[in-house]
């Protein structure tokens, strides 16, 4: 049934640090690589070397310019993938039961064998987290690398989503957001982690850490350029005053 579970035992998800992300798109590449070779049908790349390349991705990195009222504009890189919402509208609209939210860990998945490719779940998602694969014509979305995180054939350090494992700056964190003691929950509490589009009422599990406030701009050369320095004393002080008096 595509009804949402009333409660999930865990809330596995990502915490993405917008202060640290440098917009290198390594997570996009790692995600595409892992998810093309593992869970479900491969992610398409049509006309990859031609004039109109198009394909499906489960993770995309936007870049925004943010202009404060005073001071310089900031560039913020913004990775976006499925937020594994508690109140996921994509799940309940599905007519076939292909979309579901797991009770054991809260991951939202698509059973591709049941997907008729109607696209209604992608319409219901406010975040653009679901893309219809142009070749296979089934809905693709982030699986939170469900085939990595429980995979005992992988070394323990690799049992996290490919995007988190690959991030060179440590801007992505993975963990259980239902446990207030978990590292990710602590990070969210400490840094004021936020929901995207709260007005949509989707209760996303993934959280975003806002960029830290910038220091006030300082002119580092100013003290060196201050040629008068302190008021002169002694002989130089007498000379200074005398010369001033001469006009």
């Amino acid at each position: 049934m595509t009804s949402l579970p009333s409660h999930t035992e865990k809330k596995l998800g990502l915490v993405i640090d917008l202060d640290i992300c440098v917009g290198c798109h390594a997570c996009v590449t790692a995600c595409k690589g892992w998810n093309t070779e593992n869970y479900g049908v491969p992610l398409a790349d049509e006309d990859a070397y031609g004039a109109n390349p198009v394909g499906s991705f489960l993770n995309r990195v936007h870049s925004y310019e943010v202009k404060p009222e005073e001071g310089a504009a900031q560039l913020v890189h913004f990775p976006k993938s499925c937020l594994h919402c508690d109140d996921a509208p994509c799940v309940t609209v599905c007519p076939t039961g292909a979309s579901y939210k797991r009770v054991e860990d809260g991951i939202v998945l698509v059973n591709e064998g049941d997907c008729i490719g109607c696209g209604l779940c992608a319409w219901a998602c406010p975040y653009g987290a679901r893309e219809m694969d142009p070749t296979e014509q089934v809905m693709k979305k982030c699986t939170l690398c469900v085939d990595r995180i429980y995979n005992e054939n992988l070394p323990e350090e690799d049992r996290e989503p490919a995007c988190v494992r690959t991030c060179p700056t440590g801007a992505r964190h993975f963990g259980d957001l239902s446990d207030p003691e978990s590292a990710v929950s602590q990070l969210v509490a400490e840094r004021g982690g936020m929901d995207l589009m709260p007005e949509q009422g989707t209760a996303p599990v993934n959280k975003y850490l806002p960029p830290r406030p910038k220091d006030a701009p300082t002119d580092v050369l100013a003290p060196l350029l201050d040629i008068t320095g302190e008021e002169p004393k002694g002989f130089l002080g007498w000379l200074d005053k005398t010369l001033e008096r001469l006009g």
Partner: protein
Amino acid sequence: MHPAPSIILFTVLSGLGFGLLIFLGLGIPAVTGWSAFAFFAIAYLLAVGGLAASTFHLGHPERALKAFTQWRSSWLSREAWLAAITLVVMALYGAGLVFFGTRLGVLGWLGAGLALATVAATSMIYAQLKTVPRWHHWSTPVIFLGHALGGGALLAGEVQLAASLLLVLGGLQIWAWLQGDGRFRAAGGTMESATGLGNIGDVRAFEPPHTGTNYLLTEMVHVVARKHAVKLRAIAYGLFSILPWAILALLPFSHTLAMIAVLSHISGTLISRWLFFAEAEHVVGLYYGKR
């Protein structure tokens, strides 16, 4: 939203077919035998033709039967059930009229109610989507039901009733267009709320995540051709409401004129349904700085 021809045809044709079934179920017009057969054939061609068109936009139409499984949560699944049950009930009722000259009143009333519910379920597929503020409103079912009832009365040959319904439908549609225009803004989504960066300052899309297009942009950020929306609204209104009303209410009845009224109404409804999709803006566009 991308105005896919298969979905426009589906909603318009099946809306008309089920609209006609509503009136046939109520015994309007009171036909039996061959003339009943003609009315039912038209209704079934429209309803079933529309449903068939809807499968053209599926990635995997061979799995379409799976869409009957989730009626407890999904409006699309409910619509599939209601459409199927309506067609079965009305087939039994129609068989009574065509072959036995008997009107099974209770069955007819039940079929009419089911046909009405089917159109309502179709409209709820769109009205349920919070992500498309223009659709997420009770005016969406009102407009879909209005088109089904107005078009149904027209096809049923109810001159006076159709004229009145089409006039009322025209007013409702204009009202729906106008008050729908402000709903995206009223829903409160902005680039600032989408990115959560609003408390730093104004947000502008600096670089898109991909150099080409993608499914999200082609499916949900349909910005082309919207510039003629006002003219198209006027044309649609003239064709689905004013012209058929004028023909029915002001001119003496003739079958040729009635046919012109029907064609005019269907053309206008197709344009208005195209606008229903083309003018609808999805909140995901905010991430791209487009709507």
